[in-house]
């Protein structure tokens, strides 16, 4: 039994950590806020889930469910955060429209007669603070 647990942990921990690391790389390397959100919302969540499961395997059974609970909460909340951040990014010009192959939202808005502010002007200069 212990062996099974140990093997599970030995797989899940490094995997989770590596996902976290790759997510961080994405957060660092992706071109705009929208893409970075993917790194934050996915790679990180996944990494955390794996680590939690790995830990759950090692802890006494009465504590393992709590770690699952953490995972559940994380999965419930992380998408909401990304949606709020994402829509905010879109609304306050946080997106690099050059990296968008297609923007059906802008198209829809244009069709509605309310084109988004920077729809045709390319990305705004949001690096002033650097």
């Amino acid at each position: 039994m212990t062996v099974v647990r140990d093997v599970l942990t030995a797989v899940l921990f490094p995997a989770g950590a590596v996902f976290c690391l790759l997510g961080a790389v994405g957060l660092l390397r992706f071109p705009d806020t929208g893409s970075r959100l993917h790194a934050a919302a996915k790679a990180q969540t996944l990494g955390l889930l794996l680590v939690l499961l790995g830990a759950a395997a090692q802890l006494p059974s009465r504590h393992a469910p709590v770690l699952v609970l953490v995972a559940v909460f994380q999965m419930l909340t992380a998408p909401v955060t990304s949606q709020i951040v994402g829509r905010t990014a879109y609304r306050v010009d946080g997106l690099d429209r050059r990296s968008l192959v297609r923007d059906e939202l802008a198209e829809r808005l244009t069709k509605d007669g309310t084109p988004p502010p920077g729809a045709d002007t390319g990305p705004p200069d949001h690096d002033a603070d650097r």
Partner: protein
Amino acid sequence: MSRVVRHLPMVGWLWLLWVLLWGSVGPVVLVGGLVVAVGVVVAFPLPPVPGWAPRPLAVVRLLARLFADLVGSGAVVAWQAVRYGPRTTAAIVEVPLRADSDLLITAVAEVTTMAPGALVMEIDRGRRRLYVHALPVRDAHDVEDRRRQARSVEDAVARAMGQPLPDRAPDDDAGGNPS
């Protein structure tokens, strides 16, 4: 009476939560948990959650899919980050939904966001559309792929939650937006 029944799932969940947190099932914990759960529901009344009859098998399938999606999306995003980094390209894809309940749309949005390289950015509740930021997307083909993927998520979620879906998504102008 029906009010009580409609709140029972929440009470049950809170009770379970309490027991899980304590990590023991002694009488004190059980009774205390019931008191706490009922107390919270009574003291802070919220509208009941409508249309919610999970189907266990579908739920398990959804969870499996979810986990698979999660690993897949994580891997894709990770690979994009390492391989392409700043040169990654994306698209915002419009996904018309058939579902017309807040809960279902929420669930679809949640699960979609966990899918590979998809992230719900805007929800048009009135016209039942999700706008999904997808990554990586290189061409129109990819865009359609993503749209399909998202709609299959909708199916899976609806099945898991025991909610039937209407046959077709609304037209562009159907429904309209509250303004």
